[in-house]
């Protein structure tokens, strides 16, 4: 755990050193909403129906941004090999990177969400708090797979494209469910299906995390 926290601390330090990237990410997600608004000229009612999907598209883009970054800095000066040399388990390295990627993605999401509320003129109700576990569960699913696949993709020339190729199909179930859950909360119809579905997302988060935790060792090794 100590090693994982050291990695987390180092990552956050570097990430917040260049606040530019956080700012540009925020503006980028703003652009996503604007562009979607131009390209789909639809009534407010339809807009509300696709809003959960839009929100997750913005989230995913911000997540990809962090993931592409996460191991690019590790490759820079051979640090990936350095991680293989460290007297720590591969799982610890994974945990550290997972935490930093997740925290940064959650930060982006908390910046994106207010724009979303304003643009789609959503009513803030008490029920909206249910979005917190939904977003947390969806994000963790995305980053737990994303972290290990980013470490895979970074070994290739076109790491950004390859990360998308690998990650999107694999993470699609989690995203589909998250969009659905988000829709239920925003639409104000928390049906019986809500909690079982949320539990299911969490269950798969756990599976993805555990498997990646165990397999990460092999990614560091030559």
């Amino acid at each position, binding site marked *: 755990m*100590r*090693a994982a926290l*050291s*990695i987390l*601390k*180092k990552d956050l*330090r*570097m990430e917040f*050193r*260049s606040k530019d990237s956080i700012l540009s990410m925020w503006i980028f997600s703003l652009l996503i909403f604007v562009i979607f608004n131009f390209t789909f000229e639809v009534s407010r009612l339809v807009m509300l129906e696709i809003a959960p999907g839009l929100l997750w598209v913005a989230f995913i883009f911000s997540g990809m941004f962090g993931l592409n970054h996460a191991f690019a*800095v590790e490759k*820079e*000066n*051979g*640090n990936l*090999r*350095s991680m*293989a*040399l*460290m*007297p*720590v*388990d591969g799982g610890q390295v994974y945990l550290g990177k997972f935490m930093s990627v997740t925290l940064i993605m959650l930060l982006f999401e908390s910046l994106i969400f207010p724009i979303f509320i304003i643009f789609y003129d959503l009513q803030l109700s008490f029920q909206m708090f249910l979005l917190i576990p939904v977003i947390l569960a969806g994000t963790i699913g995305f980053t737990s797979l994303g972290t290990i696949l980013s470490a895979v993709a970074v070994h290739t020339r076109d790491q950004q494209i390859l990360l998308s190729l690998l990650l999107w199909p694999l993470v699609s179930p989690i995203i589909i469910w998250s969009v659905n859950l988000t829709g239920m909360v925003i639409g104000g119809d928390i049906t019986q299906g809500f909690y079982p579905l949320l539990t299911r997302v969490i269950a798969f988060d756990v599976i993805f995390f555990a498997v990646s935790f165990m397999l990460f060792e092999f990614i*560091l*090794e*030559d």
Partner: protein
Amino acid sequence: MLLPALELTKVSKDFGRIIALRNIDLTIQSGEFVSILGRNGAGKTTLLNIISGVSKPSSGLVELYGGDPADTENKSKLAVISHEVFLYNNLTATENLEYYASIYGVKDAEQRIKDVLQSVELMHRRFDLVGTFSRGMTQRLTIARALLHEPSLLLLDEPFTGLDQLAIGILISLLRKQKELGRTILLTTHDLHTAKELSQRYLILEKHRILHDGLMADTNPDEIRQKYFSSDRSGE
């Protein structure tokens, strides 16, 4: 008899269909300083990677202090210096060392960091980002990084390549000190004179095998060059 620091038995390594090492048998005692010489592509780097546990051999056995090189305990005894500096450009010199100190569980880290920074003459730049360093400075910092946790086994993969005179001087004197401290050191280099100056023993690696294993005292750089690296032997 003392347990050797390092023992390789019939180690081979392939990269898919590329052959990197063939049937390497090698024993190195604690406190030895061994130079590994050979042409590009001979397998020197691969050999060091296998010793450090980063690479797994395709066949054969590697024992570091009687155990698996990948054991956590062994890894904490080890340091690598190569052309890859293992530093983050977006962190300062001190932050980089703090990170490594915490990973390696260095005791009294603050003092230790000051010490190593002093030994590579970088105290005055300790709060600057590594990204702003010159090549030579970065290399000096990576020497500090490697010595931070006082490793008992040092693997140096062509550490002099790309260094300026100052850095070369610092590295050589630090290596001498490490040798006096009884550390085991493996060095790959093309600089036969430095190899002769520093090491007692040398290996010639050619075509993925150990061609020769001898004592530096019995030879001199010109003889080695003549025997193993003259152009009429080049089969590249």
